[in-house]
């Protein structure tokens, strides 16, 4: 959600935010959450869990918009999202900028 | 606890065994029947379909016997006293979920009005060929209780007993009638409700989260049940399980689970046992019979006694668990056991096993379709007395 200019009502808009929690030992590495996250918040780990699976890591925590899709599509009850503080869109831009650097 | 008067048709009736069985079930507290029509058992389901609307019962005619027995097992977990009724071919189909009911330890009653088999056999004629199926019909090791009535009056009385035993031991009870008893019309006296003793289901009273569906104490005892839909969140399965009902797939769990199923019946065999004996103490020959055959055997025994033979009778009302200890007591005192049955030798095998060669065992077989000629039994008694 990068803007070419700041909308006039930007200060009034609040974006929901989710805190992502991952029980890595339940994960069987299906990749569903990484594939279907609409904000590309997650990536698969390089490390293995105790069962020998890669599990998701949070790549861009601040970008989660609490849509819960990862929680819903996870076949293992391994990832879930709790509602976090809403925020103003600027934060996104900061994150984008930070990534690029 | 006494019977609920609403289900007790007190009075003198002239009805057949099937109808008496239905009345016994209702008096005994049964309020759920799932069945599928099959000769010669249909009259039981028909009478219950007619009577249930007046006593608050739930009747459903299922699509087959597999479904009937499954529905009974499911209904029993809601706390209701449930039963099904069938005959030979349907009995075979019920074996699958009879095993489930056994494994889940649900109290219920399965009425089998026996006819001639195998397969479609003799739909309208009698037989006693399902007795070993009653013992071994479903796969795996287990013990159940089987009752054999020999008159319409007993069809009433013993159906109540069957429900009481099912509740006491959390086990399916097989009510092994036969076509002759089922279709024989006689006087049936139904007593007042306060003369009928009912064993109600034992429900768990403690904290919900502490409830365990099963108790494997090794002493033949069974734990209390709950009603589904009341927040206990139980899990029960046909898989080998632990006391929580959770599947555990290993040899130790199997040993604990299956031994419990067997122990709760065998350790209580003498409490469960209902047998009727006459003049066995000084007998040379004991005639062991059950169901309709016991009434034919009586004529042979009377004739033998008229000839001066010392003959006793033992009628198995509970055929399973088999009264092994009682046969052990008698086997050294008598010359022979005579076993007439309407099959080519089933319960006789169990008698032989218990006698262990210490007396003669003489089978009087009959392939089915009719009852014995009493003279055949008399001849066997005479042979045994030699």
């Amino acid at each position, binding site marked *: 959600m990068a803007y070419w200019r700041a909308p006039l009502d930007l200060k009034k808009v609040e974006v929901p935010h989710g805190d992502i929690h991952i029980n890595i030992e339940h994960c069987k590495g299906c990749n*569903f959450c990484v594939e279907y996250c609409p904000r590309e918040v997650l990536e698969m780990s390089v490390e293995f869990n105790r069962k020998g699976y890669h599990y998701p890591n949070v790549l861009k925590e601040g970008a989660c918009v609490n849509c819960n899709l990862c929680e819903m599509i996870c076949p293992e009850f391994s990832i879930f999202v709790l509602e976090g503080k809403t925020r103003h869109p600027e934060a996104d831009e900061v994150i984008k900028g930070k990534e690029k650097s | 606890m006494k019977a609920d008067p609403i289900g007790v048709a007190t009075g003198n009736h002239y009805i057949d065994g099937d109808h008496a069985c239905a009345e016994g079930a209702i008096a005994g507290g049964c309020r*759920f029947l799932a069945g599928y029509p099959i000769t010669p058992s249909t009259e039981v389901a028909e009478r219950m379909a007619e009577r249930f609307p007046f006593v608050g019962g739930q009747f459903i005619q299922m699509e087959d016997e597999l479904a009937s027995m499954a529905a009974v097992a499911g209904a029993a977990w809601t706390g209701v006293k449930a039963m099904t009724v069938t005959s030979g071919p349907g009995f075979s189909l019920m074996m699958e979920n009879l095993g489930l009911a056994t494994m889940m330890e649900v109290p219920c009653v399965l009425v089998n009005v026996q006819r001639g088999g195998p397969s479609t056999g003799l739909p309208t004629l009698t037989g006693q060929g399902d007795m070993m199926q009653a013992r071994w019909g479903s796969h795996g090791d287990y013990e159940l209780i089987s009752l054999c009535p020999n008159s319409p009056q007993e069809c009433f009385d013993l159906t109540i007993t069957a429900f009481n035993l099912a509740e006491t031991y959390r086990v399916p009870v097989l009510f092994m009638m036969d076509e002759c008893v089922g279709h024989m019309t006689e006087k049936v006296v139904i007593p007042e409700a306060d003369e009928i003793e009912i064993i109600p289901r034992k429900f768990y009273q403690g904290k919900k989260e502490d409830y365990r569906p099963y108790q494997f104490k090794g002493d033949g005892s069974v734990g209390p049940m709950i009603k589904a839909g009341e927040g206990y969140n139980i899990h029960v399965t046909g898989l080998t399980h632990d006391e929580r009902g959770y*599947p555990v797939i290993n040899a130790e769990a199997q040993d604990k689970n299956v031994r419990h199923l067997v122990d709760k019946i065998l350790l209580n065999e003498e409490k469960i046992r209902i047998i009727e004996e006459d003049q066995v103490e000084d007998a040379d020959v004991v005639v062991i019979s059950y169901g309709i055959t016991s009434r034919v055997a009586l004529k042979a025994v009377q004739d033998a006694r008229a000839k001066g033979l010392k003959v006793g009778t033992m009628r198995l009302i509970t055929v399973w668990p088999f009264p092994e200890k009682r046969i052990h007591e008698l086997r050294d005192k008598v010359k022979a056991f005579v076993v007439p049955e309407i099959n080519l030798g089933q319960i006789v095998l169990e008698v032989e096993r218990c006698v262990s060669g210490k007396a003669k065992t003489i089978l009087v077989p009959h392939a089915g379709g009719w009852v014995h000629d009493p003279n055949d039994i008399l001849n066997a008694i005479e042979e045994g007395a030699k």
Partner: protein
Amino acid sequence: MSKTAEQILSDELLIPQPKEPLAHPMEGYLRTDRLPHIWCSTCGIGTVITAFIAGLQKSGLERDKVGVVSGIGCSGRAAGYLQLDSFHSTHGRAIAFATGVALGNPDMKVAVISGDGDIAAIGGNHFIHAARRNMNLAIICINNFNYAMTGGQAGPTTPESANASTAPYGAYEYPFNLPFLAESSGAVYVARWTSLHVRRVTNAIAEALVKPGFSFIEVIAPCPTLYARRNRLGSGLDLMRFYHDNAVIDHNADTRDIDIEYQKKIVVGKFVDKEKPTFLENKDAVLSAKLGDKYIPYKGA
């Protein structure tokens, strides 16, 4: 106390902070002492269970009044993970067993979660008859196109030409079109989704749970270990991508036309949602009319 630079940064930029381990929001509905479950990596059954819990929460039903019955097979293990009154019955008999529970306690809503083989092959007769009676049951049939628990044999829904361990040269039987079978047997609610459509499945389950009568939801789900591997379709994730590209939502589709062909488009949607008295409503109506005050309805044990 003034904030450190790092605190300010983390507040502003939402940098991950170490968190206390928290309980999964669905934990109260799960037998967590049995997790992780037995299903393979990328299997779709777990997703359907998540959707079931979400649907149950959404339905507003009192949780203690909801029971689950499963049959045998991979999907048959569903009952074992749900912290509800849950029954793991015999192969094919889940609907018959559930009929007993639903009639034994008419205040309960009983859901059946089981597989295509369990419900449509060995349990096919119970399925059509429970639908015919409009028994108050919600059936969730997880269709993975094969018998997975026993090693990938062909089943009643295996598409023609698909490979299975008992169809090693390709299946040549006609498969069932389950929504059509359900509708023609009398179901009042019929839907088909894939396990990719988690929100649709959740909504369907919520609707089915509150709908009086016989509801049927088919959920197409990936079987990575057997169906996908034997047919060289990749992982469960590849099948999810296939659903994404080939599932066509058409709520108005005629169920006669929605057969599933091997690796062709899958028509999904809510096809039937109608009102019809249930088995018990009909029973009460007929017996009350005939017997009047003498009729005593069954009220449960």
